[in-house]
């Protein structure tokens, strides 16, 4: 009972602090925990496994296969809210690393051309959840 009360107090305190922070920096984030987000997470897990295998092959294989490249991708298709999620997904999948993100482009460092190409095809950009229906 007492612990429950403390729990409620804690949550209230955190919400109040967050409210103050939101008022100060005026950067409010909303993350919709809906079905599409969960589906995206599952898909991302699969991608992580696949690309980990690629990097593992590169680590244990010879150095010749290693052809690091750098490239820019447009992010116009990705809604503004989801861009950070997009950038972090790129970094999370081994083999591709997001170096920079601005309003138009993400700069990506990839271990080989193959992984850069698969990003260019735009699977991940299409799958990132968020209001894809053009509001952005």
């Amino acid at each position, binding site marked *: 009972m007492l612990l429950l009360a403390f729990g409620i107090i804690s949550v209230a305190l955190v919400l109040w602090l967050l409210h103050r922070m939101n008022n100060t920096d005026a950067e409010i984030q909303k993350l919709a925990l809906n079905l599409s987000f969960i589906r995206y997470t599952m898909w991302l897990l699969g991608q992580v496994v696949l690309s980990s295998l690629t990097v593992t092959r590169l680590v244990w294989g010879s150095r010749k296969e290693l052809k690091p490249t750098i490239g820019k991708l447009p992010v116009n298709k990705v809604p503004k809210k989801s861009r950070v999620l997009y950038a*972090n997904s790129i970094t999370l999948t081994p083999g591709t690393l997001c170096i920079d993100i601005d309003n138009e482009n993400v700069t990506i460092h990839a271990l080989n051309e193959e992984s850069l190409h698969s990003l260019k095809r735009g699977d991940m950009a299409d799958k990132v959840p968020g209001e894809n229906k053009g509001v952005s």
Partner: protein
Amino acid sequence: MIEIISSVFLIVGAFFSLTGAVGIFKFPDFFTRVHAASVTDSISTILIIFGLILRTDFDLVAVKLLFILIFMLLTSPTASHALAKSARHGGLLTLAETRSDKKVGDD
């Protein structure tokens, strides 16, 4: 049964972890090494934490493990990204750029 699945998860996770650790020595420059480190951060963390969750009674301990997993999956790509970004802005060149700068075909 669950025990076996958990063991497989743990061992594969440990293998990926070691792979990443070897990678940070074997890869030639900073940016490629970040990739190697991200193997240990993403897949091996996921596998090991899931392997441990399967060993709990799915109580508070499992929730805490899940909390660690979410926390790490949020922070570690962020840390890699921020580090790579400041390395880039600090003027560190990637391998391809260094090679084209020198105009010499090394190794």
